[in-house]
């Protein structure tokens, strides 16, 4: 052995039995010798050449193995000496371990992940969902729409009781709006729900509730709501919502599901919060669509604001208790302000 010899204490395991042997490894440039302290004459010493030894990669301060080509190994926690041996033998030091030991890299990683997570939530997921939703064939949208309406009919809706005269008027205004978008195959359905509301399904089905028609003071108000719903169809909002919810759900499961089990209780919250954000974006997108459409027909977008205001009052207390950031709609105040400004100024923005 030359002066470069290194000493590593550890435990030898022959691979045939789990019996530990306390050993001292003396390593030089060409190989190593193992001296047993519980020496039995047969195995007082063993020697391995450099190319018969595989040095395990470093992982924090966990014990590391020197594995030998005969299946035996030495396990030692003396990481620094093993690192030096690795250097003497000309092995490459673990890049990953170098990254993990560098606090600057660690802080950079935190910043990178935070940035990516944030921009992914805000831009990435909606962008990807839009691209996918627009690329999906119409047949699929049709399928989903039919299934949804059937399910809602079973669970929530009752047949409409609006008189035929009123119904005809609403249908007429719907046709006047829909005629500009034959490719969306828009259809109007009337249902009773108990709450003033309107829905848009991915296949072009728009549902208005009896209560919405009752609460409307003018036909323009109903028209505004219908235009808003057509906006949802045009932008494939229902499909995008489904895709976004799936994506966020998958990400948060991957991110938090693996963590301490306690957080599983919490895994639903990021999806809930993200979906609420996404739905705000969609409401204002549909509002923008309605503004353009109404202005083209010479109507005042403010009519939509008026009925919105009344709907909020009707729903009343329940909504007010929910803090703003948990509400799935943008503050109705800001939506109304935008719609009224559009009526006054005549611009969609």
């Amino acid at each position: 052995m030359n002066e470069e010899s290194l000493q590593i204490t550890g435990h030898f395991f022959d691979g045939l039995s789990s019996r530990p042997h306390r050993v001292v490894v003396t390593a030089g440039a060409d190989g190593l010798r193992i001296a047993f302290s519980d020496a039995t004459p047969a195995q007082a010493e063993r020697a391995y050449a450099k190319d018969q030894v595989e040095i395990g990669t470093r992982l924090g301060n966990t014990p590391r193995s020197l594995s030998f080509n005969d299946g035996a190994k030495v396990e030692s926690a003396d990481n620094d000496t093993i690192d030096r041996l690795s250097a003497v033998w000309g092995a490459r030091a673990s890049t990953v371990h170098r990254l993990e030991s560098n606090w600057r890299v660690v802080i950079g990683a935190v910043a990178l992940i935070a940035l990516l997570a944030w921009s992914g939530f805000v831009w990435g997921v909606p962008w990807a969902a839009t691209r996918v939703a627009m690329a999906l064939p119409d047949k699929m949208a049709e399928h989903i729409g039919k299934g949804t309406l059937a399910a809602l009919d079973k669970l929530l809706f009752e047949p409409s009781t609006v008189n035929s005269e009123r119904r005809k008027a609403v249908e007429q205004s719907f046709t006047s709006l829909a005629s500009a978008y034959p490719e969306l195959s828009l259809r109007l359905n009337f249902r009773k729900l108990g709450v003033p509301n309107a829905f848009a399904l991915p296949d072009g089905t728009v549902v208005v509730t009896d209560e919405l028609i009752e609460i409307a003071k003018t036909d323009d108000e109903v028209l505004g709501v219908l235009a808003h719903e057509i906006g949802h169809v045009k932008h494939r909002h229902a499909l995008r919502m489904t895709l976004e919810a799936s994506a966020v759900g998958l990400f948060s499961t991957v991110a938090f599901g693996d963590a301490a089990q306690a957080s599983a209780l919490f895994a639903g919250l990021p999806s809930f919060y993200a979906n609420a954000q996404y739905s705000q974006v969609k409401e204002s997108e549909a509002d923008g669509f309605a503004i353009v459409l109404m202005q083209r027909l010479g109507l005042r977008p403010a009519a939509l604001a008026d009925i919105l205001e009344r709907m909020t009052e009707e729903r009343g207390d329940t909504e007010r208790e929910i803090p703003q950031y948990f509400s799935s709609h943008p503050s109705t105040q800001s939506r109304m302000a935008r719609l009224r400004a559009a009526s006054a100024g005549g611009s969609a923005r």
Partner: protein
Amino acid sequence: MEEISRPQPTDVSPSSTQQDIEPRRLPMQFTGTASEYFRIWIVNIALSIVTLGIYSAWAKVRTKNYFYKHTVLDGSCFEYHAVPRQILKGRIIVAACLAAVFIAKIYSLQLYAAGLVVLFAISPAIMVMALAFNARNSSYRNVRFAFDGTVKSAYKAYLIGLAVYIFTIGLGFPYFHWRLLKYGISHHRYGNQRFHFHATAKPFFSLYGRALGILIISIVTMFVPMFVLKIVGAEGPLVLVVLTYAIMFLLAGYLKARQANLIFGSISISEEATASMQDTATETPRNEHFLVADQKVGQVIWLLVGNLAGIVATLGLLIPWAKIRTARYRAEHLHVLAHGDLVATRSGTPSRSGLVADAATDLGDIGFDLGI
């Protein structure tokens, strides 16, 4: 960085043949630290993102090894040997399967349902593959673990348990759980040592029965503060949320602690009886070593509450800390009562190999990751 003194292995003299001496209490220890693991964790995530998920297979092996190697029994650590490249292959297969099921969901509900049925039907086979993959890639003192349950016996255990579960309208769940545990544990080997599971189904029934009792009592008593608050006029959804969480933590802490104590406490390991050994069995009793766990319900609740609070307050930055303290708690409340030598020898069974088997076992492995 705090320095943790690592216990040295007790040197077993090769000729110690004395039996029935006082059992040795060998504590399980966990030597990982949050600051060390944090750096490994964050670099794993960053590299996984930068490599578009490819590194995640390497990250998985690194993470698993970190926890294995910091788990110390009698001065030696555990080791995980899975090859990341195989895990990556398995992940790609699983991602393709999940994508297929997801796309089926969009196209046709029937097709989606069929996909789910298939996933459900093959889940026992996947479970066997996962257990086998994990076992044969785990070692202690240079001797590997193994799992030798067959797919057929897994279906038998699963279907019998499931039948009891369904025909008793869910009341037989403890039996189902017990049946699966017994199957999974007693087919494990460590070298030439066989794992045994001594529990009967009865303590599982009493454990789950008590948990149900706790749930019912706490829901009933939950209405009391609700009523009081309603009278005071301070009623609101927040109170309901807090009380629900309190009940969930109480229940989770109870179940986790008592399950760990019952399950670990029913495990032992002893040299597998072979034909030649049975002749001499009357002469020398086999050395049997028992696992003992002593988790406390209150401490586990505190652990869970702390983990959740830390993770939520730091938007996930304390996930590594939570994992470390959970692993430490588990290890510190687990020990082995060794009767005589705790020495296993490598068993002669060669490990199964072949590309298909490897891909399939990796498939099982990831399946558990995603909680299928």
